[in-house]
């Protein structure tokens, strides 16, 4: 029985990770023809080529700008929204939570197309700039927002509401009370939310595809590369992307686990 379940688990993981392992292995494949089935020895050539490719570097730069600014603004907006939702009465809170959750289950293609239509409409109204970096960042903020709210809200609900009052009681203005007392309590949720937002933003393809105009992001560039010719460079690029997202996810999970014990262990200065 035990053996069976082990074999079963093995196949599940094989099924899940085999494609990625193949991708990673072939990103180191030394081949002249660009073949993806014949192993020709180990090389780092594709990675070198990757960093020499001006277009890829530009796409990477765009992706990073978008991911940093989108996760930054989504974190601020999401935290503020979570505080607002937390202080609502139960009916209002239920409605707000459903409104918040809906974009997460809404098909991405629908979100992407609808945003494109909205932006095109807005651009024609403003009679100015076309789709590009600005619209990409706005779109990314929008779809990251619910994830930030959902990771901050539980922290707020766990917090003793008297803490905020206690800080005021000891002489803090309402804003200072939030800054000195509430924020440290929900910080782990905020960081988790920001990390989630960053990973979601950096590897988003569908919504970006519709809202990017001529701006290239990394996933869009990879997609366009596969249409021209299939190069092992893609393997290398995808491997790097995978590694970055993996590291961020591990970081987020690690933080979540660490959070409770951290409170007790952390001492202040005298």
């Amino acid at each position, binding site marked *: 029985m035990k053996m069976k379940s082990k074999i079963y688990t093995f196949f599940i993981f094989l099924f899940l990770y085999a494609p990625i392992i193949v991708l990673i292995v072939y990103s180191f494949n030394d081949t002249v023809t660009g073949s993806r089935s014949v192993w020709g020895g180990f090389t780092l050539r594709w990675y070198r080529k990757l960093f020499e490719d001006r277009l890829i570097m530009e796409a990477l730069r765009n992706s990073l700008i978008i991911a940093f600014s989108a996760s930054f603004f989504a974190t601020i907006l999401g935290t503020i929204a979570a505080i607002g939702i937390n202080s609502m009465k139960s009916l209002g809170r239920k409605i707000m939570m459903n409104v918040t959750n809906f974009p997460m289950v809404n098909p991405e293609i629908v979100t992407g197309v609808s945003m494109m239509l909205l932006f095109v409409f807005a651009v024609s109204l403003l009679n100015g700039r076309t789709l590009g970096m600005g619209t990409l960042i706005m779109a990314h903020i929008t779809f990251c927002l619910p994830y930030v709210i959902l990771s901050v809200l539980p922290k707020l609900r766990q917090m003793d509401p008297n803490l905020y*009052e206690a800080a005021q*009681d000891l002489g803090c203005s309402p804003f200072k009370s939030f800054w000195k007392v509430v924020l440290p309590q929900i910080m782990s949720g905020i960081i988790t939310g920001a990390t989630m937002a960053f990973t979601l933003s950096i590897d988003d393809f569908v919504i970006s595809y519709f809202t990017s105009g001529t701006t290239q992001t990394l996933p869009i560039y990879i997609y366009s590369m596969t249409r021209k010719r299939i190069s092992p460079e893609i393997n290398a690029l995808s491997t790097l992307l995978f590694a970055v997202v993996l590291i961020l996810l591990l970081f987020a999970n690690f933080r979540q686990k660490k959070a409770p014990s951290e*409170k007790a262990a952390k001492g202040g200065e005298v």
Partner: protein
Amino acid sequence: MTHSIISLKNISVSYDGEQVLKGFNLDIHDGEFVTLLGPSGCGKTTVLRTIAGFVTPEAGDVFFNETKINDLPPHKRELNTIFQKYALFPHLNVYDNIAFGMRIKRKKESEVKKTVVELLELVNLSGYAHRGIAQLSGGQQQRVAIARALANEPKILLLDEPLGALDLKLRKDMQVQLKEIQQQTGITFIFVTHDQEEALSMSDTVVVMDGGEIQQIGTPIDIYNEPKNAFVADFIGESNILDGLMLEDFKVRFAGHLFPCLDKGFSKNTPVDVVIRPEDITFVPQDASHIKGEVTNVTFKGVHYEIIVDVDGFKWMIQSTAYQAIGEKIGLSILPDAIHVMEKSDYSGTFGDYSTFSDEMEEDMILEEEAELEDENEV
């Protein structure tokens, strides 16, 4: 007594359309230990939160040293609160928690350190300065909360059922400590509790509340010996409350007989409530008393027995060190100074004999009350 440090004038507060306080008036003198006592939901915590500034009354005024402070936000009021669940800051250690208020006021770090060390000594926690809050027991957290509040040198300390979460033994110790701290510092304490014993043993003045109104204000001894109405008599300690008729000064009729008493000043033939405390009744042979009955229940309470005696259908509670067997027929003797006569009030008839008395029921009621209290906290 000196002037009033806090005056509440005609305060009205309601939550979601439900009136919690109506036309509430209270004067608190400087240096007093005042306790607001009442069952859960009576509005006592609301009074405290109104003084602290967390609740804005719909009507009425709050005065601090004769200055109106209605619109003064909580962080500008010269008073501090000790919250029911302490509300210590979990991201700071003991030292930083206590130093919090002083640092907000930008005091010198050397001064802060001196005060923190002094306060830790005052609450017997020297050596705990660098512990995390989560590493402390309930009693220790309680004392850190006291030190944190005192660090701001408040004129008034507000305490919202601060001992509610502690076990009985610790609670008694903390009662003594709090009283000592109050006497040492001379700060006005406004203490909220639903525990009548706590109120009686700690306070200079007890304010008994029910339904958003003050039922009686007085010293613990006055409140216990001279309750104003049936609610106070029932809430503070145990009472046998009977319908009576005040025939003339010093003569009251109840339980079918005429008794001499020490009360006067009622007009002739006034219907009254008569209170007799269970410990003021003594057992005599049946022939020697007008009140004869049968023992129906005996509970051992440690110091005394709690004995229920059925007299013509009215069940009396008597506390006595003398054991009586169930079924025994005995007489009850009541001396004139054991009889307390009160005017009739809205509460008359609500509290009466101990016919429904049983230990189980009492426990149920305590559990219910605790459950209610928890509900209240969640709101």
